């Protein structure tokens, strides 16, 4: 799975596209871990291009959230499609992961 990254005001914004499921979730986690730096104030997953996330994908988000919490780095997701948002709501992930409407919102909150 391809990811694109940019840093704005010390916040790493990670763009991904397509599906996150059991077939690529491990690779997704590895590629994110490879780009996150200790200097980042915050990390945001921009899910604007993600149309499906399975429970294996949610687990990757949970692992990332745990890792970043230990480093005291802010973390959130943004630009969820309605179907992905529903998965977050049903599983209760919306109660433990910060969700932002847009990348700009996330950056201004986490910088």
């Amino acid at each position: 799975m391809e990811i694109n990254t940019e840093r704005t005001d010390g916040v790493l914004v990670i763009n991904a596209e397509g599906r996150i499921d059991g077939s690529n979730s491990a690779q997704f986690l590895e590629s994110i871990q490879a780009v996150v730096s200790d200097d980042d104030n915050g990390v945001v997953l921009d899910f604007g291009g993600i149309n499906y996330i399975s429970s294996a994908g949610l687990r990757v988000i949970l692992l990332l959230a745990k890792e970043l919490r230990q480093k005291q780095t802010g973390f959130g997701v943004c630009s969820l499609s309605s179907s992905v948002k529903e998965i977050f709501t049903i599983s209760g992930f919306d109660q433990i992961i910060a969700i932002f409407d847009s990348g700009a919102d996330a950056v201004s909150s986490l910088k």
Partner: protein
Amino acid sequence: MASEKRSRRSGEAGPETSHTYPYKILVVDDEPDLQPLILQRMRRPIRAGKYVFTFAQNGVEALQKLNAEPDIDMVVSDINMPQMDGLTLLEQIPSVNPNIRSVIISAYGDMQNIRTAMNRGAFDFVTKPLDFKDLRHTIARTLRNLVEWREALASRDQLVVLQNELDVASKIQQSILPTEFPQHDNYGIHASMEPARNVGGDFYDILMLERDHVGLAIADVSDKGVPASLFMMSSRTLLKGTAIGLPQPGDVLSDVNDLLYEENETAMFVTVFYAVYSPMTGEMTYANGGHNPPLLIHADGSSEFVPQIGGIALGIAQGIPFPQKTLTLERGDTLLLYTDGVTEAMNAESEEFGVERLQTIFRDTPPTSAQATNDAVFAAVHAFAGDTPQSDDITCLSISRV
């Protein structure tokens, strides 16, 4: 002496891969002078304990040797011999030992026989008069190939073993799920799971509680494979143990959540819908740990999803409360619990089955029983998915109030 051996060996490329030396090489030739010549010219690797040579005069004798000595690794054979020639021998070798490599000795320039030999499975050839330096290299190269082949075979066998273990894990997963369901004058219960090819993490449970109450659980562990199936088994055990002691579903999920969280290094989680049904009143008290909302289907075919009441998948966060709520099953109502293997089943166009199709199933044909409800869901999902491979476990648990 030792240093002499080392210096002599250094110029020769040996098979250098793990094998219990020596390799055993059968040389087949009707020329009696060849035996002492080979032993003389190959004395270095023989002394170094790398090769052992054994000899046969013709193809018939060679086959007898191959049968009697199954530890022979390779054959070096002449072509023209009495009784059975080298080309016939080549044809016979695989039936005796399919993992033997053969090198043929041919007359210089005899391309026709060389081609025939290669087509009959010879690994390589050398020409007469024998160039022993070339023969040593050819033997070493042939044995390297043999070792790689054997390692590939061993890897394949290991894969088969692993696949068998996965199959066992999958069978265990299924074998712990109840397949006999309580039958009662006032209600019927039925549940079924269709596992995906990988070991998945769906489970359901039906618990007979005090005062004729019935505990109903459906759950889905994040991810697949053996770790997920272990997490699923511990989730199921904890849920069962906790539910038998606690009457309130919210308390049950809260306790199981904390127990799972304590030993959860791998950030796995499980979504669980758990309800306690009271057959006398039709009341169903439920709590939801991040699971898909069940569908309440009425006798007229109309339906609605059970309201979301908050609650998070289990194993993620510690000490969180799980709200609970009570709904009432009227006579003729069916409550369908399912996993996302149903709603996220895909067709060839990569469309999801979705929640609307789930409701549509019953609009014109209301459920007649718990089992009929599940059967209708599986049939609709199969019809929708067609030949698209199933990527997740599909699980349904239904309860109908009679």
